[in-house]
């Protein structure tokens, strides 16, 4: 006689909802975040790695993430932070690990001359200034939102934007800050 008895449908609502919500959030965010990371890093492969890492880290802590009021903003924050980390890590690796081709970042060449100059100048900015510029002019975030994303004060954001624009202006031979400096 073999085992007999009841066995019926098992409703794994939680897992189903989680995977579906992850899929929806992914589809809503992935392309935008890839674009953001690419502009930040200037490297398509690095942008892909950063965005995938952001999703992996974020969704792995699903129980925390699902309680967030603004999940897209959170994902963007993670991507920006990872981009900044990667940028700094690159800098360290270039210096410490003796990468002889320092500064020779592999970048896809845009086809518009003005864009080349401006984007190249943005990528030469220090990482925090670069992040401020990208969040302000690509993502259209307010200074308050930028401060929240970068976990700093609005005063810092203002000063970073000011300095960044001054550097961009110098790189382009313009005064874009409106100051007398």
């Amino acid at each position, binding site marked *: 006689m073999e085992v007999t008895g009841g066995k*019926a449908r098992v409703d794994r609502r939680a897992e189903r909802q989680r995977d579906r919500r992850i899929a929806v959030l992914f589809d809503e965010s992935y392309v935008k975040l890839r674009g953001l990371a690419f502009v930040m890093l200037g490297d398509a492969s690095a942008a892909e*790695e950063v965005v*995938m890492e952001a999703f992996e880290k974020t969704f792995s802590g699903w129980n925390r993430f699902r309680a967030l009021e603004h999940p897209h903003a959170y994902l963007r924050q993670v991507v920006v932070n990872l981009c900044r980390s990667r940028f*700094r890590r690159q800098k360290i690796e270039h210096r410490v690990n003796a990468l*002889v081709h320092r500064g020779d970042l592999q970048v896809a060449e845009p086809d518009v001359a003005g864009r080349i100059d401006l984007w190249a100048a943005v990528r030469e900015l220090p990482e925090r200034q670069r992040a401020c*510029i990208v969040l302000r002019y690509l993502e259209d975030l307010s200074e308050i939102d930028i401060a929240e994303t970068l976990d700093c004060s609005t005063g810092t954001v203002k000063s970073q934007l000011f300095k960044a624009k001054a550097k961009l202006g110098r790189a382009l031979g313009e005064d874009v800050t409106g100051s007398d400096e």
Partner: protein
Amino acid sequence: MDDFDKILSESLRAVRDEHIQTVTSSVPAARREVLQRVRRRQFRFVITSSAVTAAALVAVLLITQVKPLSKKTSLPPASSRPAVVASYYWDQTPTDVAATSDAVWVAGTSRGELGYIVSTNWQVARLDPSQESFEPVLSGTFAGEVMPEDALTSLWASEGDIYASMDGSLSRITHDDVAASGGPEVGTGDIAVTSEFVWYSSANGSETGFLDPKTLEPISDPQSAGPGSIEQVASFGGVNLELKRSKAPSPELIRVDDPKGVAPEFGHGTPLFPSQGSAAMEMSAATVWVIEEGTESGDVLVRVPRTPQSAPSTEPSPSGVAGDCDAAGGNDCPETPLNPSDDPKPEIVELPVRPLDIALDGDDVWVVGNAGGDVETNQLVHLDPSGKMIGEPLDVGNVGPAAVAVGNGGVWVTNANDSTLLKVDPEGASPSPEPTVSDEPSPDPSPSETQTSVDCSDVPFTPGFFPEGMSSNVGLGSGGQEGVPLSDQAFGSPVMHWGEVDVGSGGYGDVVDVVVGEPPYPPGTEDIEVLGGTAKFGGIEDGYMTDITIDGCRYALLEYMSEDNARKFAENLVFEGDASVDNDGFAIWPRHEPEDAYLYCNNNDNAGFSKKNGQLTQDAADEDTRTIEAMAAAGLFATDVLGWTGDPHPIEAPYDLPADQRGFTLTGPEQNHMNVVLRELVPSCWFVTGVSPADQDPNSPTGLSVGKDNKGLRVGISIADRNIQGDLAKLVMETPDGSRLRTTAAEAGSDQDEAVLTIPLTQMSSPTYFLIYFEDQDGNVLNADGGSLPSGDFAAG
């Protein structure tokens, strides 16, 4: 200025838009990969957690040896701890499993776009262990898309036959063929099979009826279930029970004395707990077990003792030998009714998992379920008839739908997420012979055959140093057991997690697992040289796999990294204990080579060992003396390296320590804590081989990177910002001359997260060690890591 803003904005958007045009087509593949990574990551975390749990018990045992006054705690004997002894990959998504005396069967659905999520086809297959494959017996297409947890594919075993409910229709399957198909027009919900009838409830629970168990032809007209709906049915020893929900929210257990002829007496059942549904019900001679979903406590396992509770078991054991009691109650069945007048008391069984499925093993029960909280994996739990847990929970794959069955020589567990069928040996023995698929009974192995069986449970190799350009650090990852040499990692068979590997790829998936036994993927076709022999190498779903056979034991190295690195990783494996190769990436201070340790100890007059005929010999020292020696070394580490006053106490945490290791908790000046593990590298000479926070968070890898300057000037350690925990990262490095350098390497919230501690390379002709630990503003240690820098003559570099 406004114009400039506009130009800047347009320029950046143009760059972005141009880029994302190339991205759109890759979204589905990327989505799939993210889901896989999330599940794998969670699996890694839980492996660590379960290992930590087991290690904690061992640590308790260790403490009891040090403190005789402590109450002794013991682990269950090894022979009573279940172990996964075989893993079979199915190219479908398994949703149920059943075992007969001569075969194991799985039912499942096709793999959906998102892994296991959405399916369109179903299949029933029989495991052929000799071919390591599944032979399809029955297949079909759903009316629409389904989720595997919709459980539209279910199996039952009875008298050597399999009953399969596929998308509402019922089939009886013999060993080789589909013997009958049919079933009620209303579709089937749960069924119970005896030698006399198949008792079914309809898909919505509103009707019930009976079929001939051989032909599946109706033997009585369907009858209404009355008020409410039937959720589960069970039949054992002539007792028939239905779980019925007529008065929400509590379902009732109702005994149906004559299910074929008389409608049950409504309203005289045993009420269970308020819930939203039920997932399974099983009845043995002593107990009725029910999984109730959506109770106040979540999903729970409910135990309802039958009376008398001392009734002997007549159910089949995992060996598949059935008792004499037949379900119709005709043969020697004990009088074990569950009757409303007996007033049985349902109780919720405390479990470490959220139950998904149950299977009887005599009067015992096996439960497969999801571990709770952020640790999302499936575990198998063994309970005695009183609901008491036997042994420790066993990890059985990633979180997701799962089913369990008992029979054919083992406990069988499916995992929909991993697409695996696992065979579990309840006795925890070494890998057993594969289940036979022959109709002939298996002969008992002779004593000599038993003695010559090979134990493949120990992985005999470890990662060696990587070639130029690759880091020497192995472990330190989210799933690694920090501070414990690779060979001593205590993860359960068959998957041994080697943690994350920093191979300098800058990638995010540098993970290595070792599967003992059959590889979970088809072997690759390329031959590569590994450990002096030849191994098969090839791509797998999201990484690479090296399939190695050593001394008759088979190992699959799962390498989630780039192809080049996976190949190099495999090619640089070394045999465990090979003295010519430094294969211990964990030792941090002050030496990890026995000879160095000998010199150190000798120079410091700190050891009670001797060297005779060129061999180090161990002085006779009892366990307590050795512990005191280790404690002294831990105190030295606290004062010399950490700058703490140090007051080592035997560790109460997370290391499964071999006999030659000891663990201690150090207390800092601010009452902060850190755990250290010391190893007796030479007799009576102890060295720190691992550090960790007192309450280790396995989710927080420190992720160090180590490099050197091409001009031969310095060696540094950089710390990625995301890996900084708390407020400060402190770094200690030791040079071969014994001097130590300390610095605050990084400070969170500032730009100082990339400090490099430098050492003149003139001192760097042999390995040097580092330790890094993170503190919050109160000085509490949040995490710690250590390792050796790459060996070699740096000065020549």
